[in-house]
């Protein structure tokens, strides 16, 4: 061959490369602006002392204050207690659902998921109705049980985190290899021994995963502890107290950073574990089908029914209380609390729905673009992109919300133009739950054979054409479920948005909190019921839409 040097070939820029570059750059820019900048702002602020100097003063005063150290201790105490208890409880429940032949599995499964549809403070309000100073129990039996504090948070957050642990553990228990169980029993192992030597080891990743997820949920939860924590203060509530109570943004930032660390560790530990999960089940595995054992099934049914009853009662009492005149003194039926003649009236519910719709629409676009860029560009910078895309999972809502205040409540920042609007709330929601939406879309794109892209390219299609005509029609059910997920989260979230609302952009979940703080418990209950109803109606509508379009097998509840 004539003088053909062995040179390295660089691809030339063309419309396709520009298209993918524009999408990746756009998505990355938004992530930097709405994820990295707020986190950076909170880190920076935590080093600004009250006198304006930069240093570790805030941290020194935090770690030398007995009160702050107490809060740190409380937070870990209640979080670890709830985590251990919830995972154990949920493991039993998931085991009963996946590995026994007890009756009413579908119903029990649905009840277990109820807390996902409600703002996190609903459990606490339900507990107030039942066990509060003027709760059903104390009034009926004349007892003086005090639920406010550790036990209140413990019960409320256990119920709140339960469905998340259950979903992970059910998935882990659902995949199993019957051959292992057959060999174990044929070797003469007792059922207890089979459990310890086969079941438990096979689900250890699921258990670890659920543990970290519950830990992160509980340590960052704001709604339940603010309502039922009493004097037992935790970090998430303390951020709120520092910022909204004392306008001490620097201290709020310090508490935020201290909360960020364990939450982030838990989330990244979970991601690390999730990557090695389920590798043990191969294509040749034979699924295990549980066989009926009446005595055992009855016991598991009792266990599961008790948990379902607890979940149902706590939520049910909130709905019930919204229809009675004055809980618990006058239980006569009334629709009076649904008149919403306080504060902004019903307005916050509409604002919430409006914000949730904006969140869902923007979320579908942004998450799809981010997942598309991540799927089609594979180079070193994209690993950073991926990290940024899932980073929000590690950032507690309170921290992100405060970060938005610190970063954007500044006329010099271009985002200030939308500060105080519903749009910034929607964007905050979008990025607060970006990781989950992004992972949903990414997983789906991975399932679409690369051969489609390649076939399309060899037929002369540009990337845009391929996306429009092939990719989009294949992934739209997942995009819809991303939208549904965003709508649900936006309706019930409290933590991130609490710093961003203004009197005109007040949200329903915040109204519930305010009404509760003012002692208007029945109205708070009515508002909470409205939120749950909106979510359920929306879910049913989305499910119907998918059914009409002939799409099955899309899970809308996550």
């Amino acid at each position, binding site marked *: 061959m004539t003088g053909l040097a*062995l040179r390295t070939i660089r691809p030339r820029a063309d419309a396709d490369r520009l298209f993918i570059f524009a999408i990746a750059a756009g998505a990355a820019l938004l992530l930097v602006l709405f994820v990295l900048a707020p986190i950076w702002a909170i880190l920076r602020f935590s080093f600004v002392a009250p006198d304006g100097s930069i240093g570790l003063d805030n941290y020194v005063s935090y770690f030398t204050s007995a009160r702050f150290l107490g809060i740190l201790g409380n937070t870990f105490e209640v979080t670890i207690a709830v985590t251990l208890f919830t995972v154990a409880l949920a493991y039993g429940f998931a085991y009963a659902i996946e590995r026994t032949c007890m009756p009413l599995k579908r119903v029990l499964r649905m009840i277990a998921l109820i807390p996902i549809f409600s703002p996190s403070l609903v459990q606490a309000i339900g507990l107030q109705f039942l066990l509060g100073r003027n709760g059903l129990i104390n009034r009926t039996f004349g007892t003086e049980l005090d639920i406010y504090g550790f036990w209140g948070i413990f019960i409320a957050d256990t119920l709140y985190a339960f469905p998340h642990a259950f979903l992970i553990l059910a998935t882990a228990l659902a995949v199993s290899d019957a051959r292992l169980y057959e060999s174990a029993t044929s070797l003469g192992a007792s059922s207890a021994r089979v459990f310890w030597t086969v079941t438990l080891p096979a689900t250890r990743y699921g258990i670890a995963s659920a543990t970290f997820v519950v830990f992160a949920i509980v340590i960052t939860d704001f709604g339940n502890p603010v309502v039922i924590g009493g004097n037992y203060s935790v970090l998430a509530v303390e951020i709120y107290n520092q910022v909204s109570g004392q306008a001490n943004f620097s201290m709020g930032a310090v508490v935020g950073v201290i909360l960020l660390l364990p939450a982030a560790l838990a989330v990244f530990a979970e991601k690390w574990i999730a990557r090695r999960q389920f590798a043990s089940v191969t294509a040749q595995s034979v699924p295990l089908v549980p066989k009926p054992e009446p005595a055992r099934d009855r016991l598991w049914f009792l266990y599961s029914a008790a948990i379902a009853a607890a979940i149902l009662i706590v939520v049910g009492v909130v709905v019930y209380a919204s229809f009675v005149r004055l809980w618990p003194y006058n239980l006569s039926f009334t629709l009076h609390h649904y008149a919403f003649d306080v504060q902004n009236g019903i307005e916050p519910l509409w604002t919430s729905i409006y914000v949730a719709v904006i969140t869902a629409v923007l979320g579908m676009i942004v998450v799809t673009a981010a997942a598309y860029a991540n799927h089609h560009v594979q180079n070193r910078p994209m690993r950073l992109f991926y990290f940024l895309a899932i980073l929000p999972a590690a950032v507690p809502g309170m921290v992100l919300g405060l970060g938005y205040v610190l970063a954007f409540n500044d006329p010099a920042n271009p985002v200030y133009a939308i500060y105080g609007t519903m749009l910034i709330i929607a964007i905050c929601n979008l990025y607060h739950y970006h990781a989950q939406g992004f992972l949903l879309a990414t997983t789906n794109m991975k399932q679409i054979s690369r051969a489609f892209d390649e*076939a399309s*390219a060899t037929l002369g299609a540009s990337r845009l054409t391929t996306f429009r005509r092939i990719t989009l029609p294949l992934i739209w059910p997942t995009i819809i479920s991303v939208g549904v997920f965003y709508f649900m989260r936006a309706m019930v979230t409290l933590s991130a948005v609490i710093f961003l609302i203004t009197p005109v952009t007040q949200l329903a979940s915040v109204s519930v909190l305010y009404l509760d703080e003012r002692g208007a418990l029945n109205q708070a209950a009515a508002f909470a019921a409205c939120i749950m109803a909106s979510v359920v109606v929306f879910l049913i509508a989305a499910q119907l839409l998918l059914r009409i379009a002939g799409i099955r097998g899309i899970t809308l509840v996550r």
Partner: protein
Amino acid sequence: MLLSLKKVTRRFSGVVAVDRVELEVGEGEFVCFLGPSGCGKTTLLRLIAGLETLDEGAIELRGRDLGMLPARKRNFGVVFQSYSLFPNLTVARNIAYGLECRKLPRAEIAARTGEMLELVHLSEHASKHPHELSGGMQQRVALARALAPQPEVLLLDEPLSALDAKVREALRGEIRELQKRLGITTIMVTHDQDEAMEMADRIVVMNRGRIDQVGSADELYWRPATRFVGEFIGRLNVLDGAPWQGRLDGEAAGAGEVLAIRPEHVRIVDDGGGGEPVFEGIVRRTAFLGNMTRILVETEGNALEIEVHGARKRLAQGELLRFELPRARLSRLGAASR
């Protein structure tokens, strides 16, 4: 030459998948890339299609360098192993896809699509979706879709390997016939030697990213250039053990070469023999395969395979067998790949 590959090289994180491949493909030719999995044949095809980027070298179409041209601008039709039909589009829309990307007038698209449907005998399935068709039908649609925009070259990436044996045989003939009728230059990747030998004008045998030999099916069978080619195409006894070497001294192989013989050329000696070197071995295994019997014999610890055609009395295990290795049938092969 229509297509020229010059020092084509592709590395994946340090491993060389395709190593300085040189090849010329003529107009209307049917070329097969044949080799075991991991030999780089699919990567080479993808490089030609523009689905992988070259690290070094050049690919030229009629003397024009394609190196940096993206797949969508090459006008090469590609058929993938499986599942590459767009599941959301009907058969007709799948076939029309490439034409629509070229923004042809509607009437022309419809006419061409109809023509292609007829070509692959699927006119009555035009409005079905891919999942409603059998695997063989799906691959015919994929073929029609790739051919519709009148590509310069047709590239087939193991198009038959996901199909049942029966369908595979039928499609082999159909593809070859279509290719001849349209006179389209075609490159097919396969790991199936029968497929390559039946369909191709020329076979390119690849091993570890490099081309071992290029030639027609007979050339490769009768005159393999390397031990690898000989062993990959058909069966081969490599005579590198002590008993053979001692007796076949006159035929001694040069440095880096080995002597070999195909199993069907070993002759069982029932009488005195024909003056060729005669050996004795013990029958270790026999396999009756209908039109032939395959016998494994052992001579002083060295195994040798013999194929006998036609009826023969059954040989028992452990029986002593005399056979000769005709000198004219011995071949000398490069021990290593080139």
